[in-house]
């Protein structure tokens, strides 16, 4: 399941949906990304998240297809929030189930690395000094190249 949404998500509910009526999934890996208070030395008050409607969903589907070609994924959920977010708010949820933990860990790691470098989302930070678009980071590109 892929969802781009303004509203928050419930991690417990998403976990339950991933495992409901599935006793083959021996491993569940979930990741949640949140708005943190300090980024590159700037005091962050919140974020605005912009995306490219249509391409966002398409690119996430392609990223999932790539992950499915590499690992035996039973179920997956990707939720990415858009719009105005506050400190501590959830931004992104990635959940993967598989028979064994290695595949679930790797697939979730891969999905996040590819999401961060290929899916058309842009963050604008609201700081005490004003708002600033976040620059892409070399480390994220390096992380994506591992795969």
């Amino acid at each position, binding site marked *: 399941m892929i969802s781009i949404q303004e509203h928050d998500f419930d991690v417990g509910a998403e976990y339950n949906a991933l495992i409901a009526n599935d006793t083959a999934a021996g491993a569940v890996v979930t990741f949640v990304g949140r708005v943190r208070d300090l980024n590159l030395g700037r005091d962050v008050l919140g974020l605005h998240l912009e995306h490219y409607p249509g391409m966002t969903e398409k690119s996430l589907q392609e990223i999932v297809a790539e992950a499915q070609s590499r690992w035996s994924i039973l179920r997956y959920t990707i939720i990415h929030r858009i719009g105005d977010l506050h400190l501590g708010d959830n931004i992104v949820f990635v959940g993967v189930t598989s028979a064994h933990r290695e595949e679930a860990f790797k697939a979730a790691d891969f999905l996040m690395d590819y999401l961060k470098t290929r899916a058309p989302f842009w963050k604008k930070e609201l700081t005490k000094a004003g708002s600033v678009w976040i620059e*892409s980071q070399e480390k994220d590109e390096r992380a994506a190249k591992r795969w």
Partner: protein
Amino acid sequence: MISVLFFAQLREQLQCEKLTLELPAGSSVTALREQLIALNPAWLTFLTSDKLLFSVNQTLVKTSHLIHDGDEVAFFPPVTGG
């Protein structure tokens, strides 16, 4: 007729979210960029940034990619989601 979309800081720098224009058959993304700069010389700095990404019909492409009538092209800065 093709449509061109701009996102994030590039949209703010150009003060333009979307435009449509006629493009000669067989034009590449590079040719489109040159035409946009010819129409709006002030866009030169922003459109020639070597970090920009390009998509055609919502798939990332290289600047050599050929654009066809009816395509949706987008120019945007490196993505920063997650």
